[in-house]
């Protein structure tokens, strides 16, 4: 069993008691809710005549179903019903709601951090598997199911079993156009989509420490794609700098100073014990692309797609089916794979630095004639900040659609969907069959700059081959 890791320390601080099931009851520091997974939980509460125990530790937003183009109410069909239900639930319970008309709405895993709701040493839960994102701040953050949402609403706590801790150290420096997204795709490829089951991942090492907070979020975000329910990075100066400038502390520097010793205290000790340790060489990485239908089916952009017979036996079948679905051949690279749609968005990669990097590549170029390309900022605030820098113009001039904030084409729950067998270069986190709204649709996961390159060339392209234009220097700030 691990000892003296951040996971152990935060767990202990939040443990209420051990339950008869052998699980621990944990206090929940922040409960984020959205419109898809919470209505049933509120319904269960009403059936039992229970109230929300800690409304002040709960925060809501709407992301999955909101249209990103025409945002006038009422929304179409069931989306309106879900939105209305959420509005009623948060009003009745007195829960803060970052609704679209506050200017604070966005994907739940973007707005929590940007408002400073997510803090180091907190337990954060949400009925959404990508809650692992919040681990980037040294929080213990995990996705929960609807019955657990009911538990958290009713009691402010959740029943959980303690996991093992695997430290993943990413060494070295990331090369040109290699981003956090590539690191996590490599980790999942190495350890498997179920390699993290039973584990919490601690990401460490120079390459992780060198990342900005947004990059750390991209990595923690996809922990769940590797089977780990939570992933985290120990908080450090980079984390604190971000926090200092959020709503939570901007006007309250005293509170910041007061909490900092706690944040420092929950960092993993230098001599902490881990249940497992893995080292990934960051120097070696190149931009990654997926060739299949799980996030574990990735390769470097210049690397050949594997032959299923070379894979471990239990992976062969899935690989064959995936290659069939995607229409790719082993031995070839993904470079040149034709793309119909480019989607720059999602809670993995729709924050300001993601948009900036992509914009620098896009500036002075044009989206390929056969591609429909869209940028969907992760939140209304990201959108506003990007517009302040003129990124919207860079994208629009190149032929990208510039949309309102939401989950958009990450999943087929709103009007943004793939049609027929369209292939999509996507900065999101899941390439499952049917994920983007069409069951014959094909998703190729990659980092935001690679999405931009694919949009311009109309095919999967090594972004390193597209140097920034002179326009980029003048138009887009670094």
């Amino acid at each position: 069993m691990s000892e003296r890791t951040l996971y152990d320390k935060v767990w202990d601080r939040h443990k209420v008691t051990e339950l008869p099931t052998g699980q621990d009851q944990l206090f929940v520091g922040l409960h984020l809710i959205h419109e898809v997974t919470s209505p049933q939980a509120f319904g269960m509460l009403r059936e039992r005549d229970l109230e929300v125990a800690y409304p002040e530790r709960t925060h809501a937003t709407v992301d999955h179903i909101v249209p990103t183009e025409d945002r006038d109410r009422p929304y179409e069909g069931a989306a309106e019903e879900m939105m209305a239900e959420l509005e009623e639930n948060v009003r009745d319970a007195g829960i803060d709601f970052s609704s679209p008309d506050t200017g604070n709405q966005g994907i739940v895993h973007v707005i929590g951090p940007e408002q400073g709701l997510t803090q180091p040493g907190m337990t954060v839960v949400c009925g959404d598997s990508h809650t692992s994102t919040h681990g980037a701040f040294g929080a213990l953050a995990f996705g929960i199911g609807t019955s657990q949402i009911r538990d958290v609403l009713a009691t402010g706590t959740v029943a959980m079993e303690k996991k093992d801790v695997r430290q993943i150290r990413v060494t070295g420096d990331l090369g040109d156009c290699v981003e956090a997204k590539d690191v996590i795709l490599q980790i999942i490829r190495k350890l498997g989509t179920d390699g993290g089951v039973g584990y919490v991942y601690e990401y460490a090492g120079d390459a992780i420490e060198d990342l900005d907070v947004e990059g750390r979020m991209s990595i923690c975000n996809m922990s769940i794609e590797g089977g780990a329910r939570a992933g985290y990075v120990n908080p450090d100066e980079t984390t604190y700098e971000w926090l200092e400038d959020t709503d939570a502390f901007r006007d309250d520097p005293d509170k910041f100073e007061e909490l900092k010793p706690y944040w420092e205290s929950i960092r993993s000790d230098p001599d902490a014990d881990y249940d497992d340790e893995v080292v990934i060489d960051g120097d070696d990485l190149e931009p990654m692309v997926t060739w299949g239908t799980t996030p574990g089916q990735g390769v470097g952009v210049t690397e050949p797609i594997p032959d299923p017979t070379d894979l471990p036996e239990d992976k062969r079948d899935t690989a064959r089916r995936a290659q069939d679905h995607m229409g790719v051949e082993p031995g070839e690279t993904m470079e040149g794979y034709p793309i119909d749609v480019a989607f720059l968005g999602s809670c993995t990669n729709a924050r300001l630095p993601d948009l900036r990097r992509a914009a620098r590549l896009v500036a002075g170029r044009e989206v390929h004639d056969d591609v429909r390309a869209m940028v969907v900022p992760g939140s209304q605030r990201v959108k506003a900040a990007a517009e302040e820098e003129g990124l919207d113009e860079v994208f629009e001039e190149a032929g990208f659609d510039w949309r309102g904030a939401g989950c958009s084409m990450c999943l087929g729950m709103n009007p943004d969907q793939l049609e027929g067998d369209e292939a999509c270069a996507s900065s999101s986190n899941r390439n499952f069959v049917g994920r983007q709204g069409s069951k014959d649709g094909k998703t190729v996961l990659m980092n935001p700059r690679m999405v931009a390159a694919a949009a311009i060339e109309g095919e999967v392209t090594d972004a390193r081959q597209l140097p920034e234009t002179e326009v980029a220097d003048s138009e887009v700030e670094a």
Partner: protein
Amino acid sequence: MTDETEEIETVEHVSGTGIPVRGNDIDTDQIIPARFMKVVTFDGLGQFAFHDQRFTEDDEPKDHPFNEEQFRDASVLVVNANFGCGSSREHAPQALKRWGIDAVVGESFAEIFAGNCLALGIPTVTADPEQIETLQRYVEENPDAEISVDVEEETVTYGAPDDETTEIDATVDDAQRKALVEGVWDTTALLKSNAETVAETARSLPYVETGSAETGTAETETGEEAE
């Protein structure tokens, strides 16, 4: 969920006929495609279980065990590795449950999925790949045969009554077994009974500001800004 009461059942064993769904890494998007989640209750989700595997674009049925009449009354689902991976949607086990599934036996399960199943009282039982393979073949050949899942003893038994029965040495996660067998899988009541200790834990945390958090009572004031 309308007939839910505070009385929690125990789930010691589940038996019924089986249904095999083959393949590793079957994710929750396959179990219930996202477009069917635009609902505010879980009622009626059963008909959409595995929808896109079962029907073509034009709603023509495809080859899938969930379409086969012989499996229509099955309650024990037999699957392979990493079943239920991907999205945390509880809609997935809800859809299976509403279709008629009471237990899932497989090589391995994604954690959130298993947790969501537990919350509905559905055991997720694991066994070796070879044993699963044999069981899947058996179920295909004997759709009417009873499969019996003993949660407490961690066994899966099958075989026609007069024939020799086969018993698989299966595994049920410790916490899950306890919860099902002792009837504490509905955690809300359990957690609620510790409200005072919860408030104490909250007070001990540096980031929790004292105030209503101490009492743990709900504020029902309407937040104007929540509009």
